[in-house]
């Protein structure tokens, strides 16, 4: 890949407001000493307005204190480099902020890098950061991780602090991480994890099953071949099925839409012109979601939880594609929508949204494709088994050198 500089990062739409290159570590013995990181534009940084990629929040006062996780990382010696571009209000899979522009894919600048945490993923992929903070509500870490070929972690709820982070959907939001390698992902997670999971070195090797049915339908050839190849190399022969995945996706979609509509209701009424038109119209339509839909979606959440629990009786880790295709071109995602058909960008979360509904921890593990562009596979674990998943990602990376 091309070597990139911070100036390139600005030019290609990976940065948001704050850039602080050249800081030095205060404590060379701290566990994350020397590791450079960016934070998605929705983490509070003391003294700065947290815009979440949208003008709708630009009138807010500056944050009085930084998000807790920023303080944890500072304490561990990591170098905060600045904030990264994101899709407005974290509501979408593209990263085309009305403030910071379109984030281009470092592998091919004519393509998107995915979203909503696209700037974070791109900065890691371009070698300008060792790790980056993002959030994942419907796939906002896993989709850009796949398109840019970096490792991503969407942890179990409660493992990472959400304090000082702009929400989209409190039920499904997860703070997470990107890193250029699984060892860094594991090391950073260890420093900020608030959970009490047992040492994963004491548990036996996990049983892995590939998800079939919904998660194998409509996968494009490059992605499907990459996953087949991964399964063959790692002797993954078992399959599992999660029934009702399509309904689970629909339920996740409706929960996120309804909760986002509630969070931004006052802003839509008072300052509609500050929202970019696409986000505004989606949030407006969601104002009319009936209560009965939400009830049904929450009912589906419980049902799908039981389905997943059943699948985890015969497997410890489930694998599935992160995305249905390689990164689309910018031209493809900006093309006018054909009437009666959902936009291409909405379909990018087809394999991440069902998993989001039940909050399972996921590591996105990058894989090469024959096209030269990357993709990624989701390593999906039981709730609370985040460290075990990270350990598996490290083992798989050793067994499958890139």
């Amino acid at each position, binding site marked *: 890949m091309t070597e990139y500089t911070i100036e390139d990062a600005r030019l290609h739409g990976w940065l948001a407001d704050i850039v602080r290159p050249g800081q030095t570590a205060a404590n060379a013995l701290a566990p994350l000493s020397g590791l450079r990181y960016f934070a998605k534009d929705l983490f509070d940084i003391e003294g700065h307005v947290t815009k979440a990629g949208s003008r709708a929040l630009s009138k807010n006062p500056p944050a009085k204190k930084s998000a807790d996780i920023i303080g944890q990382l500072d304490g561990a010696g990591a170098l905060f480099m600045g904030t990264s571009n994101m899709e407005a209000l974290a509501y979408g899979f593209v990263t085309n902020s009305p403030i910071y522009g379109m984030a281009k894919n470092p592998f091919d600048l004519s393509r998107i890098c995915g979203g909503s945490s696209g700037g974070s993923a791109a900065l890691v992929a371009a070698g300008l950061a060792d790790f980056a903070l993002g959030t994942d509500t419907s796939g906002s870490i896993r989709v850009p991780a796949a398109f840019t070929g970096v490792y991503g972690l969407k942890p179990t709820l409660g493992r990472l602090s959400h304090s000082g982070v702009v929400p989209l959907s409190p039920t499904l939001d997860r703070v997470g991480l990107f890193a250029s390698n699984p060892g860094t992902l594991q090391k950073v997670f260890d420093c900020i994890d608030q959970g009490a999971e047992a040492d994963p070195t004491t548990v036996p090797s996990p049983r892995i099953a590939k998800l079939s049915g919904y998660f194998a339908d409509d996968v494009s050839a490059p992605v499907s071949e990459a996953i087949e190849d991964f399964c063959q190399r790692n002797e993954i022969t078992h399959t599992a099925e999660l029934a009702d995945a399509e*309904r689970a996706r629909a339920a996740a979609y409706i929960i996120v839409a309804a909760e986002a509509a509630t969070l931004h209701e006052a802003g839509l009424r008072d300052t509609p012109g500050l929202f970019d038109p696409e986000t505004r119209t989606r949030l407006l339509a969601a104002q009319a979601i*009936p*209560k009965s839909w939400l009830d049904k979606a929450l009912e589906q959440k419980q049902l799908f939880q039981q389905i997943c629990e059943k699948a985890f009786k015969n497997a410890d880790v489930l694998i599935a594609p992160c995305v249905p295709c390689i990164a689309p071109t910018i031209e493809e995602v900006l093309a006018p929508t054909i009437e009666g058909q959902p936009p291409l960008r909405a379909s990018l979360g087809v394999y991440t949204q069902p998993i989001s509904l039940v909050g399972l921890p996921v590591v996105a593990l990058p894989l090469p494709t024959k096209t030269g562009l990357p993709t990624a596979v989701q390593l999906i674990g039981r709730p609370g088994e985040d460290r075990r998943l990270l350990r598996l990602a490290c083992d798989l990376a050793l067994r499958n050198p890139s």
Partner: protein
Amino acid sequence: MTKHARHTSAEDQLYKILAEKGFVLLDEDQKAASAAWGVLTSMATTLGVDDNRPQRTRRDD
């Protein structure tokens, strides 16, 4: 009732609800809001809801 007529009726209901709730729907927003409502309706149908018309009362109202 034709499919088109049902669609138009849902759109009208959506615009009416938004106006009642105090939202300003700009002329240029109408088509996009209808498309966004169309995606929501398709998700609701997949979910198996009994009634997929827009309504004024949400969970938190």
